[in-house]
């Protein structure tokens, strides 16, 4: 009962972008140091001996890359074994995952002497390693970029899984509002609003400007305002508010879907990488 609830505090003296991209300076400098160390070793290797995956240097790089990959995988293992209350914070595992992934790639490239391997199996291994690390980097970019866009540009916060339920709720409320409203408001609702209240509508537009599309789409409410009697102004406001919320939900849906789906590019192929690596190690040891 003594642990503190920790927040990775932002450094007040650092620019916002730096805080965003590098949560922890010690981890970052540790990574830079490790990369530098690896490169120094490689230069020593290149100047004093031969660069070959099969010699002591090359095998050393290969073993290092494997160890790094195992460390990287611990994050996945931790996520899947939360019930067992694994030791340490998930954040630490993620640091190992991200920086370890970079080290893995570097050691793998050193193992192949920064050349494309000629064997079919090793060629695939090499390519998949690049893909996995590349998709990981893409994931980092997505995970840094999208939350900022969502929190800065939208007023509502939405739980992805509840999107259909929320839209249904908006539709029911909107229908209640227009049921007793002026004919023109009802027509407007039927033609301009109701079609959007059926399901979430992802749009590419939200990637370019999270708010721009929304403002343009609620403008017609203002054109209608002049045509409505005073008694229906409040209904119009309410309907406009609901529609605005729906559009914000769409924006959330569009971007949060990317936050979830990029993993398809990363996770299954990582599993293939592990299998291929295992086969590679086995074949090296066997033959």
């Amino acid at each position, binding site marked *: 009962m003594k642990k503190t609830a920790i927040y990775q505090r932002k450094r007040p003296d650092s620019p916002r972008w730096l805080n965003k991209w590098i949560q922890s300076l010690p981890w970052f400098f540790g990574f830079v140091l490790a990369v530098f160390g690896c490169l120094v070793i490689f230069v020593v290797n290149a100047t004093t001996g031969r660069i070959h995956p099969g010699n002591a240097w090359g095998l050393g790089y290969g073993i290092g890359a494997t160890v790094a990959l195992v460390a990287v995988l611990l994050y996945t293992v931790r996520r899947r074994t939360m019930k067992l209350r694994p030791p340490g914070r998930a954040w630490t*595992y993620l640091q190992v995952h991200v920086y370890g992934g970079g080290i893995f790639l570097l050691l793998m490239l050193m193992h192949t002497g920064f050349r494309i391997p000629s064997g079919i199996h090793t060629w695939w291994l090499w390519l998949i390693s690049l893909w996995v690390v590349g998709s990981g980097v893409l994931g980092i970019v997505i995970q840094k970029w999208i939350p900022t866009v969502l929190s800065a540009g939208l007023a509502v916060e939405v739980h992805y899984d509840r999107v259909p339920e929320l839209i249904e709720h908006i539709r029911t409320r909107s229908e209640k509002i227009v049921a007793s409203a002026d004919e023109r408001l009802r027509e407007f609702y039927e033609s301009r609003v109701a079609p959007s209240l059926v399901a979430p509508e992802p749009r590419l537009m939200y990637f370019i400007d999270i708010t721009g599309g929304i403002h343009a789409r609620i403008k017609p409410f203002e054109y209608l305002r002049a045509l409505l009697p005073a008694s229906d102004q409040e209904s119009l406001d309410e309907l406009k508010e609901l529609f605005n919320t729906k559009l914000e939900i769409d924006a959330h849906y569009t971007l*949060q879907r990317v936050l979830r789906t990029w993993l398809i590019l990363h996770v299954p192929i990582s599993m293939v990488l592990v299998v291929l690596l295992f086969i590679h190690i086995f074949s090296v040891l066997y033959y």
Partner: protein
Amino acid sequence: MESGSTTDHSVTMIKRKKLFEDRWSSFGSHAGLTGLSEMLSPAELREIDIFKEYDDSFLQTISPDVSIAQWKADVVLFEEGSFLDLAFYVLDGEVGVAIKMHEESLNAIPTFDAQRTVYASDPRSFQVPQEGVAATILQTRMTARETSKDPQITFLASMDFNLPLGSTIVLKKGDLFGEIGALNGWPQSATAHTTSACKLVQIRVPALREMKKASGAFKEKIDQIYRERTLFEQLKTSPVFRGSGDAFLESLTEKVELLSFSPGDVITKQGDRVDALYMVRSGFLKIFERLGEADVAVNYLSKGMTIGEVELLLPDIDTWLSSTTSVGYSELVRIERDTFHDIIREHPLVEKRLWDSAVAQMKESGFTRKNLDKSELIEFSLQKGLVQGNSILVIDLDVCTRCDDCVRGCADTHGGRPRFVREGDTFDHFLIARSCYHCDDPVCLVGCPTGAIGRAGVGEVVAIDDGLCIGCGTCATKCPYDAIVMHDTGDTWGDDALPERLRGRPQKVASKCDLCYTSDDGPACVNNCPHSCAFRIGSIQDFQSLLSTEKAEA
């Protein structure tokens, strides 16, 4: 106390049976209570001394909250630490009141020490806060714990009875008890049991409040009881008066005035003549100033804090610099201006503390005046109840990837049922998740018929014992922040269920965040967030300093 679907039914039933033999339950038939009146008419009520002075229409209004209960001899009415939303008035018979608090529980480390809830990049760097609300709360708690080391006297910040450990007093016809805890939302500090067959009038809090408001004599009576049973100990442990000597404090209890306020009541008005120093006994006050055309919240006060020292200490100031209103129901101690000056003349230590407090208040108000965001935060915190919280789950939406590992981690730690929802109000780019705030005065504890929800120890986390929960939903309805969720277990109550009316009905269970207090790793939500953007704040000062850090980013 691990929740989940693994509750052992036989153990549950044994526990529940024992509980029902022991204590009063609003669910009716059990061993101790032999009769409960129907709604009483004004005429019937007026036959009882305590209601004599009220007119018919008033009695008609409060009658739904009043009942007469008949009790067997030797049954426990309530226990130390329990939260009640009613007071008892003895009509007939005798009630014994005793304090038998265990030493260990007094010395227990409160879960809400700041170390547990403060955010910091390095937990080892934690420092006990020296200023602000956090400091006051902490100091009050520390003092309470220090005082409790005295082997003879047990002490809790909320005392109904100031008794030596192990002794019993007997209450007879015409005595009122339980009202201090009920009115202030404090736990009862003593155990009450009937020593003979008893007839008791049970008055719920809404009726008590109305009665206090409507009758000066009743208010005077309640205040007198409070002075005798509680005030001395409260002053003794207040940040301003602690260590000031018993004789002085005893005389002070006679001089102060006790005041009660309803939501929105004005306590001080900017520009009016300063009449007194006010100290908060319970509830929250909002302090605001007129800036241009608008009223701007500059600060708030909670239990143990004072207002008026700035105006009373600074020469040449004769009027209130700010206005103060009561946020919800609040109870205050009023120390009249002349008494205040007598005190600081004779007690330099008290004067020094008041100066410290005045300087801190001026700094805080000055800061808010210049940083209107803070005013917004104060308004938001008072409105949303954050000021009550000891451990509020906050998510930085600028970083959160909506992966839900926090929720999954919570569910995996609690038998598959998450104890919070990743939804709620937002302030700036922070989401205040719908999770228990672990309030100072948890209203959810009031009214649980089986005592399933309670503090795990003195000053500790509020948790629900699944084995005792009958799924009535009282706690969930009471929680103002929707932090308690009722889960359907998928089962129905068996033939041996107690109370009997549950039998054959769908079995529900209440669940809420327990801060994973049985685990050494701290709250699972925080621990399992891979981006370190889910964290817990212990006070709005934490939140404020967090926001300032963000603003200060180069």
